[in-house]
């Protein structure tokens, strides 16, 4: 089964990390920076991908910690 990616997304109280397709966030944070740090740690542990979204919902960056045939550089955000 394909592992679900993690997503850093805006939330009503700041920023959150949620699984792909999930209706609720795993954790929420007051800043995007903290959400990204948590998302990175989580994705490393789960060996999956982390998508960092902009506040408009578009993708800002993708970081892969899984078995990615085309791993991106750990891009700045």
């Amino acid at each position, binding site marked *: 089964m394909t592992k679900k990616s993690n997503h850093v997304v805006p939330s009503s109280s700041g920023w959150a990390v949620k699984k792909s397709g999930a209706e609720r966030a795993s954790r929420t944070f007051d800043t995007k920076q903290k959400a990204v740090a948590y998302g990175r740690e989580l994705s490393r542990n789960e060996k999956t991908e982390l998508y960092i979204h902009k506040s*408009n919902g578009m993708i800002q960056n993708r970081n892969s910690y899984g078995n990615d045939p085309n791993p991106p550089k750990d891009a700045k955000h």
Partner: protein
Amino acid sequence: MSFEQSVFINCPFDESYIDDLLKPILYILVKNGLSPRLSLEIADSGQIRLQKIIKIIKSCKYSVHDLSIVKSKKANEFARMNMPFELGIDYGLRNSDLPDLREKQFLILEANKYDYMKAISDINGFDIKVHKNETQEIFRCLYSWLSETIKIKKQDPPRKIYYDFMDFNTSLFEEKLAEFNSDDFAKDYIKNISIPEYIDEIRERI
């Protein structure tokens, strides 16, 4: 596209507006079984632009008119008048006694509450909602309008649709990543996709 399902979108086409507000509006409308119609559809045709806009307006039961840029932001910048002008055409058609057109219903959007009172106070009493130029707010505006005016029942809540929208963008990105084998190319494709193509991509994934 039937008259009953078509929604004319009268809005700015600045890059930031397209990314922050128009793309979410398109997603929400398509998700609710509606067909967005925009003047962009006619960009490269030989017909007179205004005549084609009028043709689109006549073919739509619903309209979304965004008046958020009728106020200039800095000195020597012109306020943009196309949006209120097309709202006026739409309003005139609604009151023309032409068959069907009296059923037309509008959503009017503005960035800040009561800005419209300073620019175009004649529309006082219309259904006017405030998006603050924020993506999350546009989900709330459309949710309310679809519920109150179009009477769509049992919609998903705004936050769920917002998260679905992000999942849609991820899905589109992943497809283009597989196609181009490059994050930058995938992002560039999505940034530059035409609005009709973007609507098609939404329809394929709903």
